[in-house]
């Protein structure tokens, strides 16, 4: 009995370690999946002036870079963004359309704790979420005990993708 419990604990610990640090999907595979095998050429958002300021407000710090790449087709955009949870960046793939956030997926998680944010029970909460006029999410997202910083990082990325999507739409509308 003791041996069984010990073996179970060792297996549990090994499984937790395996899930704790890793890449779950490559950026290329994510884009292939989102655009059914034919991702469009990337576009760019330059973080200048008001966009830079709002981006900083959403993240609580300036974005590492002044140009963000996105892939857009039929008013639907995909973003691959990073935000630090506690000490390491979490890479997420986000898809936004006219109805709000279509999906959010953790592509790479490098922290030692909080990897539960990659599971659908958490990420499904973001489906259809929109931005308020104050650039906040219009719905409450239930957190996960022990993963507060990872949850916060994904909430920030969801807000950022929704905000940047609005900028691509207004940019396209403004273009002749």
């Amino acid at each position, binding site marked *: 009995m003791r041996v069984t419990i010990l073996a179970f604990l060792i297996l549990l610990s090994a499984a937790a370690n395996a899930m704790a640090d890793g890449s779950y999907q490559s*950026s290329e595979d994510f884009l292939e999946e989102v655009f059914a095998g034919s991702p469009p050429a*990337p576009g760019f958002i330059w973080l200048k002036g008001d966009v830079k300021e709002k981006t900083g407000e959403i993240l609580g710090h300036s974005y590492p870079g002044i140009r963000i790449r996105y892939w857009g087709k039929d008013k639907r955009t995909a973003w691959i963004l990073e935000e630090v949870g*506690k000490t390491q960046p979490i890479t997420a793939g986000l898809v936004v359309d006219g109805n709000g956030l279509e999906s959010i997926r953790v592509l790479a998680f490098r922290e030692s704790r909080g990897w539960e944010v990659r599971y659908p029970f958490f990420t499904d909460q973001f489906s259809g979420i929109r931005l308020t006029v104050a650039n906040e999410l219009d719905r409450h997202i239930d957190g996960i005990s022990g993963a507060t910083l990872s949850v916060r990082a994904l909430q920030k990325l969801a807000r950022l993708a929704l905000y940047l999507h609005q900028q691509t739409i207004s940019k396209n509308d403004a273009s002749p």
Partner: protein
Amino acid sequence: MLRSLYIWHRYIGISTAVFVIVLTVTGLVLNHTDELKLDSSYVQSDLLLDWYGIDSSGELTSYSSGPVSITAVNDQVFWGKELLPHIPVPLSGLLVYGDLVVIAAGGVLSLYTIDGELIEKMEHVAGVPTGILAIGITAQALLAVKTDRGIYLTDDSMLEWRLADNPEVVWSEATPVPAGLEETLQASYRGTGLPVERVLLDLHSGRILGRAGVYLVDAAAALFLLLAMSGIWLWARRRASIKTHHRRKIKPIDRQ
């Protein structure tokens, strides 16, 4: 027996006092890591840095192009004297390319403005070949990257990369560290190598003293347990003794 336990309880209390203070103070402070910015504040004490073996005596790798010079000190990269975050190592090249500064490091390209502001880290998803070993420029002002699959060229849009057959390229090569910078960078490296949070965590767990420290904190935890148990037992015995004494005192009255 009771007297002996009192003595033991007292000795355990005195001998664990230092641990109680250290664990309480470090625990309290660690509970407020974010507010106190412990993970972005760095230890400057030479004694502690030496204790952790944070040594900047490794080889420095430097690249220069136009007015820009970058230097890697172990796993950190500096733009002039400033620490450059978000850059992996090893460094494999630097080019001022038009208005852009292109750095090849850790197998990927990073684009900067001439003032040192990061524009974008360009990885495979940006269409950039993976496993970049060197960067250079051709006579036609095309940007070239060398990988173990061959040499790829692109123009200043950097959107499309094509494999080229033996193009003539002037490759970016390592240069000596700019004069007077070596000591400054080594001091900067040490000064940003050890977060305060790390030291507090290690103090809390005992790891600051290595494996022995962990066992020491384990022993202290066992003593805390003994202290609590002996305290409860002494309290219970004393309470029982007081009750008995009280009962003896009131019994003669009951008989009257």
